[in-house]
C-alpha cells in the first residue's frame, strides 16, 4: 500500500497552475489543485482537474504516423522527418511560405517555442505561428 503526492505544473496552458498528482501503488489515480502554489492557490479549471487522464490514454499518439491511402500507418522517425521536410519544401516552393502555418504548444518550454517560431519565421519565412492555448 503506497499513496503519495507528486507536485507538478499543469501541462495544458501557459498559466502554470500547480497540480498535486495522486499516486496509488505507482499509478496516477487523480489530480488535486496545489493549495500553496501562488498561481492557482487551490483552484483549477476543468482541464487541470482531469490532467491525469491523458497520461495512460490509449488514444495518445506515441509513434509517428503518416496517412497512406487514407489510413494512418505507423512509420519510423527517419521516414516521418524526411516526409515532413520534403512536403514543407514542396508546399513552400509551389504556394509560397504563407500557405504554411505552424501550430505550437503551451506544453513546450519557452526555449522550444522560441526555436519553433524562429524556424517558422527565419527558415520558412511566414508569421503564421499559433498555439494550442488559444482555445
Amino acid at each position, binding site marked *: *500500500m*503506497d*499513496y*503519495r*503526492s507528486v*507536485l507538478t505544473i499543469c501541462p495544458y496552458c501557459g498559466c502554470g497552475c*500547480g497540480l*498535486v498528482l*495522486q499516486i*496509488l*501503488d505507482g499509478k496516477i*489515480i*487523480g489530480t*488535486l*489543485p*496545489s*493549495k*500553496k*502554489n501562488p498561481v*492557482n492557490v*487551490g*483552484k*483549477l*479549471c*476543468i482541464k*487541470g*482537474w482531469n490532467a491525469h487522464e491523458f497520461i495512460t490514454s490509449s488514444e495518445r499518439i506515441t509513434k509517428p504516423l503518416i496517412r497512406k491511402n487514407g489510413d494512418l500507418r505507423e512509420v519510423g522517425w527517419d521516414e516521418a522527418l524526411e516526409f515532413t521536410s520534403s512536403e514543407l519544401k514542396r508546399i513552400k516552393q509551389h504556394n509560397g511560405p504563407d500557405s504554411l502555418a505552424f501550430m505550437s504548444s503551451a506544453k513546450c518550454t519557452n526555449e522550444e517555442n522560441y526555436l519553433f517560431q524562429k524556424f517558422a519565421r527565419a527558415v520558412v519565412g511566414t508569421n503564421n505561428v499559433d498555439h494550442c492555448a488559444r482555445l
Partner: protein
Amino acid sequence: MSEKIKQYIVELFQQGKIKAFLGLKDESGHIVPHLFSNAEDLDGLNFGTERYPLNKILIQLYKRYPDVTIGILIRGCDERGLKELYKWNQLQPEKIIAVGIACSKEQAEYCECSKPYPDTCISGEQTPGVDNKTVKKIDSLEISERLNYWLDNFSRCIKCYGCRDICPMCFCNECSLEEVEFIERGKIPPENPIFHLSRAVHMAGRCIDCGLCEEACPSIIPLRTLYKKVTDIIEDHFSYRPGYDDGKSPLNILGPRPEE
C-alpha cells in the same frame, strides 16, 4: 508541527494499531497529502492551514485495502465527514484511527465553523464554535435581491466541477451534474440556477461544512454559504445536522412501506 502528534503516531505504529497513517507532508515548502507507512518514515509529517480532502483519499484506500487499519489526521470538519461517511457506509469505523487537531481561532472564524475541533484533540487548544453570520446576512436581503445575488454569483461558474471533485462527501458512482437530461453539455455558464441548485439539493443532509468547495472555486462563488443554508433547512424540518453522532439523514432512510 507539534511533537506531541508525532509521538502519538509513533506509538500507534509501535503498538501495531495502525499499518499506515494518512496525513500531510511538507514537500519543498508545499503541504500535500501523504500516506506514511511506518514510525521511522514520519520525517516530513507537517501541516499548516492548508486543508486537503483526506477523507476522500481514505475512501479510495479503503476500496482497495478494506482490511487495513489506517490512521488519519483530522480537524473538526474531517471528523464530521468521517461520522457522516460511516452512516453512508463509505468507510468502516473499525478500520480507522483518527488523530485530532483543533483549529485556531482565526481558522474557526474564517470558516464560521460550528465545531472547530474534533471530539478528542491530541494537539491544539479548543476554541468555541463561531456564529453563522454570512447566511444571516443573505437571509436579511429582500427576496428579489437574494435571487439576484445568487443568479449573479452562479453566472460566473466555469463548470470546472471543482466543487464536486474536491468534496469529501461526493462519492456517487454516477453524478447527476453529468447527466445530459439535466445539464446541457458544452454550455458555460451551466444552466442558471439549475446546475448549482441541483448540487445544493444533493448536499442536503450530507454537507459537513468543510468549505473545501468554496476554496476550490476559481469563480469565488459563495458555495459554502449556499450549503450552510441548505443544512439549516434540513435541520429546521427534520432536526438532523450532518456530521454528529445522533441520527441519520432523512435522505439516507427509505422509511416504512407506504400503505396500499
